């Protein structure tokens, strides 16, 4: 173990530069929350992830945000265990009938001000599962959504760009650049 730790000290870090926030996603955000709420949260956001019916592909890429290449913590973003500690709900999947109530309850358990970020093509409108008897639809069919990050699944870089746009927006108040 000693050698492994020592090597980590002398090697240059794997962590890559910060990607630019995706300002096209910002346009959607601008109208969603009052400026005061954004200022309160500052640059640090606690994220609670909820799988509302995904195939687990999105979860794999959200997990990847924690690896040394992306190192999401350096941006003040961190994943928390309870919705009661969260500022952001990161919701994946088409919302299934069986997860609808759980998603609503999780949303209600999250203190305001809060954002909901819908991740993945399914979370937009149900994706390839739309129309099934067991699927309610996209995330916005159940809780209000502030930002969509599309992709099947979106890459960690895309996710990061979207979440950084969220922080930028929090910092600059209601005006989007």
């Amino acid at each position, binding site marked *: 173990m000693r050698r492994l730790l020592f090597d980590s000290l002398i090697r240059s870090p794997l962590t890559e530069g910060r990607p630019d926030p995706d300002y096209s996603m910002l346009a959607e955000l601008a109208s969603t929350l009052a400026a005061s709420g954004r200022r309160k949260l500052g640059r640090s956001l606690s994220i609670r992830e909820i799988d509302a019916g995904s195939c687990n592909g999105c979860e794999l890429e959200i997990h*990847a945000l924690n690896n040394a290449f992306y190192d999401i913590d350096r941006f003040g973003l961190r994943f928390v265990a309870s919705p009661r500690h969260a500022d952001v709900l990161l919701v994946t999947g088409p919302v299934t009938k069986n997860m609808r109530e759980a998603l609503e309850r999780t949303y209600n358990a999250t203190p305001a001000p809060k954002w909901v970020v819908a991740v993945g093509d399914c979370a937009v409108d149900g994706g390839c599962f739309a129309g099934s008897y067991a699927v309610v639809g996209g995330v916005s069919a159940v809780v209000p959504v502030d930002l969509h990050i599309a992709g099947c699944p979106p890459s960690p870089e895309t996710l990061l760009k979207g979440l950084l746009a969220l922080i930028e927006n929090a910092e600059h108040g209601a005006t989007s650049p």
Partner: protein
Amino acid sequence: MQLSASDEPYAFLAAQGEGLHQIAVGPVHAGIIEPGHFRFTANGETVVRLEERLGYVHKGIESLMAGASLEAAARLAARISGDSTVAYSIAFARAVEAALGIEVPARAHWLRALMAELERIANHLGDIGAVCNDAAFALMHAHTIVLRERVLRQSNACFGHRLMMDRVVPGGVAKDLDRALADEIGSLLKAIREAFPRLIDLYDETASLQDRTVGTGILSHALARQYGCGGYIGRASARSFDARRDFAYSPYDTLQYDVPVLQEGDVNARVWLRIREVEQSLNLIDQILEGLPTGDIAVAISTTGEPSEGMALVEGFRGDILCWLRLDATGKVARCHLRDPSWFQWPVLEAAIEGNIVADFPLCNKSFNCSYSGHDL
């Protein structure tokens, strides 16, 4: 949370005795994982009974399959369990090809196997680290997820998608591999072979970690056999079954590899099984890159004009995935069932946790790593 269709509360299996209490977990869990409900009955710290209540991510996939075109059905099959997307796509494609009597070019078979082994390595690397992380040993996890990320990036460079979703299609594969990229995979293997042995030593020599994994969550040989548990769960409990060997499909019938089997059936054995399988998959990829045939990567799908049925069994990272389907006369899917390995693994987790402490459940659960979505369909 009670979500039954009727107003009757769901009745969990009872456990009676002095000092027993229940712990309800989920469907929304603390980590970034899929939803499911676990109802523990515990005596102090010791789990007396666990009941799993699944179905939260039921998406009605079989109903969407019925009447779907082959393209739409293949996309659905690739999204039954995202971590096994390649294996599912191979199972679906092989079942279609069996139904229609289509011969796929040799190069397509080999490229499919290449993707399947990359997927296996990526998942096993992630799991080995995640099991250690659930025992609060984050160092291992930090290193294995870096290796996993390297595999995903190489997959993206070679096949245009990090998880290689929709790259295997009925009739062949959607993306060819050029020589330069094949060489890059060679460099990736070299990097993994350099880093991995030191991580194995780290796992093996950290007493505090071994203390958590050895003897924890033992699955008996009898239950593994009775339930037909596939993958690392079955093989860590002496059930020697691997669809690549026992129902050998191209190109595995011409490749050299071992199917590791262990006897102990505990969390430690399931970690070691994954370690040994990563090594086997590295060797398999060597052979695939060496022997990759030239030629076409796909053939056109032509319908027979009559209803037909096909079936396939494919070894995913988690175990054997079965696909059965019936095509109608126009080549559309009439019915399709994809059986996830988790079907035969979830039930025995309830048995494996019995007598362990509640705090070891995440460890046991991660060492099983059953699919919720694949089970719920």
